[in-house]
């Protein structure tokens, strides 16, 4: 039963995801994910979650301040640049923590990771992975890491919210690259949570951590200036993309559950398995249900907004510690609500 962890974008709110992972590990130390998919801040968590560097993850997500991630400036100085913030501090963190050793471990290990980016030139979702034979897709492009530098650039691009942070030429140093000039940004522009990549690569138990809140309480007062409006727009946009990302997999899963129920009914009516299969395994060029079984799709997300500023770009260690604790406690509640038979299924 391949298990996947999908982590959405959300900047500093990634601390909530780290809390979820910590709680899962604490309660089920023998439970391991086979696939980890990350978008934006999720892509920063993904390699360390896959290599099970939990202490390092916690340290990273509870000690960083905004200036360890981005540098602010006078906006006039940035008019001729390609982002509002200078993202060199984030790159320094990435080169420091996402070492060649981690890259080699991922390339030789049995866990698959997927890092979601968006190409600015083509608008395509481009997924970077350590999987040498990834499942093809009609809706996104998949590319395998070529080197440790390529891996780090993909993470950097996935974490860079366009306009706020610079676009990254991920493939600039890849030999024989057709378009080394192409620039990539946060995968969250198109795909807030990469559930689709987990399904395509065979996951049947999927834990999705969304960093936007279940509810979006009205913001009191009037928006009077440009920047709060921009911040609010980003939050609404993120919530909407997140909702759409989940609706489609949920609908897909409902389809699978329906097909499964029909198959079971046919079986109980005395129809043999070979006949049932002949009805359902129809050879269509794009049969999305072929050889797929219903998913266990779990969604863990904060009940209330986590703060973290516009786009989650405010990194405050004390707030992030609180987010981590919230992630842990919500996961504890969530796991307690599941029947033991269900959790024992994953541990097999």
């Amino acid at each position, binding site marked *: 039963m391949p298990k996947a962890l999908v982590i959405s974008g959300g900047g500093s709110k990634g601390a909530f995801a780290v809390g979820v992972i910590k709680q899962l590990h604490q309660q089920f130390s023998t439970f391991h994910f086979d696939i980890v998919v990350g978008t934006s801040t999720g892509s920063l968590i993904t390699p360390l979650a896959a290599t099970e560097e939990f202490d390092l993850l916690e340290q990273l997500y509870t000690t960083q301040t905004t200036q360890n991630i981005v540098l602010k400036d006078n906006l006039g100085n940035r008019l001729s640049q390609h982002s509002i913030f200078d993202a060199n501090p984030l790159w320094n963190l990435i080169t420091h923590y996402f070492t060649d050793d981690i890259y080699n471990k991922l390339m030789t290990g049995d866990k698959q990771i997927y890092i979601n980016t968006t190409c600015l030139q083509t608008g395509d979702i481009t997924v970077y992975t350590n999987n040498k034979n990834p499942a093809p897709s009609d809706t996104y492009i998949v590319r395998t890491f070529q080197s440790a530098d390529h891996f780090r650039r993909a993470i950097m691009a996935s974490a860079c919210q366009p306009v706020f942070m610079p676009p990254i030429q991920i493939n600039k140093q890849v030999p024989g690259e057709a378009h080394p000039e192409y620039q990539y940004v946060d995968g969250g522009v198109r795909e807030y949570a990469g559930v689709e990549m987990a399904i395509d690569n065979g996951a049947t138990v999927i834990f999705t951590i969304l960093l936007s809140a279940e509810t979006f309480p009205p913001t009191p007062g009037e928006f009077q200036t440009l920047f709060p409006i921009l*911040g609010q727009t980003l939050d609404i946009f993120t919530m909407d993309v997140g909702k759409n990302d989940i609706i489609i997999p949920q609908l897909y899963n409902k389809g699978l559950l329906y097909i499964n129920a029909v198959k079971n009914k046919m079986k109980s009516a005395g129809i043999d398995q070979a006949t049932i299969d002949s009805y359902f395994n129809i050879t269509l060029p794009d049969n999305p249900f072929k050889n797929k079984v219903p998913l266990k799709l779990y969604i863990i997300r904060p009940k209330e907004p986590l703060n973290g500023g516009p786009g989650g*770009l405010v990194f405050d260690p004390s707030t992030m510690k609180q987010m981590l604790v919230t992630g842990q406690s919500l996961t504890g509640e969530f796991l307690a609500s599941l029947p033991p038979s269900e959790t024992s299924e994953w541990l097999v």
Partner: protein
Amino acid sequence: MNKYLSLALCLLLSFSLTHAQITEFKKGWTTELRLQSGLATNFEASSPDVFTGGLLLTEHVTAVPGKLKAGVVAGGIYYNKKLQGLFGPEVLFKIKDLNAAEMGSIGNLHLSANWLFGTEHEQLVGGGIHVSVLNKVTIGLTAHRDYNLNSWWFQCVVSVRLSKVKKIDEPFNK
């Protein structure tokens, strides 16, 4: 009590220097072209106020990031129906950032103080208040006392930044 107050102020200053990101009065040199225009008066009805205007270059270096710049001013002025030179040292003290929410800043409010010498024996001491916008344009009002020729100068000032902002190196795009 004063000792504790000093300690608290030092801690406050060091906190602001280490924790707040500096977006105004950043390290480095700045060159500006300054256009000024106004009047000089000795407040006596018997002698008329005279027009004064000038075009000057300023060069500043940040002495305390986020707080203080020091530099020189030099250029030509038109005063008392004559073209002449004016030069001298100047310091700028930032009093407020004009913040753009969490995005950074759009400018600052600062004070200037300078001591200027004219080629026709003017000796001006004074300063002003200025608003710098987008690190490109600064506007302000200044007042100076010419203690040698016994007059007051009041001027409006517009400065345009001439020095280019250094492009930030991006190793992830090389």
